[in-house]
């Protein structure tokens, strides 16, 4: 098994792990973490595509690598926007859980915890 295939399989496993975390963790910040795991898994898959495209003296295909670089920056921007929304939700309602089915379990935090 070549290193690039191995990295691709790690990427696949990371996508699975992140998906699980995204569904199961009720806390939004943890969901953002899980979402970033999915993202980096997908980037690794791009990485193996880039590595398999090695040709013409380059050890990689530069196009997927460049797409991963823009992807990392966009993923950060999305995380920052999500964090801002969560903080605002917390300020507004004192809650940070997204648990619609089970409103009784929502904690009420007086004064937004500060």
């Amino acid at each position: 098994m070549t290193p690039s295939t191995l990295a691709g399989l790690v990427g696949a496993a990371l996508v699975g792990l992140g998906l699980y975390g995204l569904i199961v963790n009720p806390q939004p910040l943890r969901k953002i973490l899980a979402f970033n795991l999915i993202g980096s898994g997908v980037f690794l898959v791009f990485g193996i595509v880039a590595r398999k495209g090695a040709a013409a003296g380059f050890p990689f295909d530069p196009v997927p690598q460049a797409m991963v670089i823009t992807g990392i920056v966009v993923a950060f921007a999305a995380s920052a926007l999500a964090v801002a929304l969560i903080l605002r939700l917390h300020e507004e309602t004192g809650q940070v859980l997204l648990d619609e089915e089970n409103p009784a379990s929502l904690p009420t935090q007086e004064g937004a915890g500060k």
Partner: protein
Amino acid sequence: MSVLQILDVGLALLVLAVAVWTIAAREIFGAVVGYVAYGLLLSLVWIRLFAPDVALTEAAIGSGVTGVLLVTSGARLKGAGKASAAAKPSLSLRLSAAALSLLAAAALAGVILALPDPGPTLAPEARQHLAATGLGNPVTAVLIAWRSFDTMLEKIVLALAVVGVWSVASDLYWGGAPAPLGRANPQGALLLLEQTLVPLGILVGVHIFWVGADAPGGAFQAGAILAAMWMIVMIARVSEPPPVNSRWLRLALVAGPAVFIVAGLAGLGMAGYFFAYPDGFAKPIILFIEAFMLLTIAATLPVLVAGPPRRSFRP
């Protein structure tokens, strides 16, 4: 060669173990620390995939800046961490989520194993046209010359993210400054770091920007490093997050995409189509665009971490 293979397998297992911890950790802080460690390990993996450009971006943005964003917001959400234990999802949900994720991972793994080797590639074309740009780093050439539309739109996405983050501010604070990043009384060690590490870091950032034309590096990586240095200065309270209505900040935030669009239109006028760089001038134009991109990235990342204006964050 076998030692290298063992190293690769060990690294892969380590990445997976830290990722599992990031998902399974009970506390948010532990999860964020795990995520930062995960980013570091991932950049080692990127080195093994012959992608130092991506490794540097992952270390700087994926691990460093994202880690700081999450840990800062985690501290602002303090007390909310305990609630997560109370609201654990039901076993059936967890089982079906596990089954779904397993299915997704297995499908992806199948696709990866079925990839043709060697795969379809644009590397020969990159090699063929690299001389025309005057650059030595094909990744930079892809970013600024051949897929410049992508890169420009990505800068616009950054600007939109800033607009989004600012727009969640309450009306009361509009035009004000975000909450300070640091604590009220910075310690001596922090000031020492600010006085010694930050100048060195700026030097390293400029170096990585400059070599980016011919070697791994470039505006993204250098911008992220400069952003990190600015954030250290703000954590040491030597400077404060600027108010959102300050003109120079807004200019810095839009400089990158604006210069990019202007360069594209100039290409339309001078060489016949959008983003055409006239022969012989490609490298200076690319470096010019990159310089403004550097400025925009270095300004945008700290602004995104600082969050919406909230002048009286600590009542």
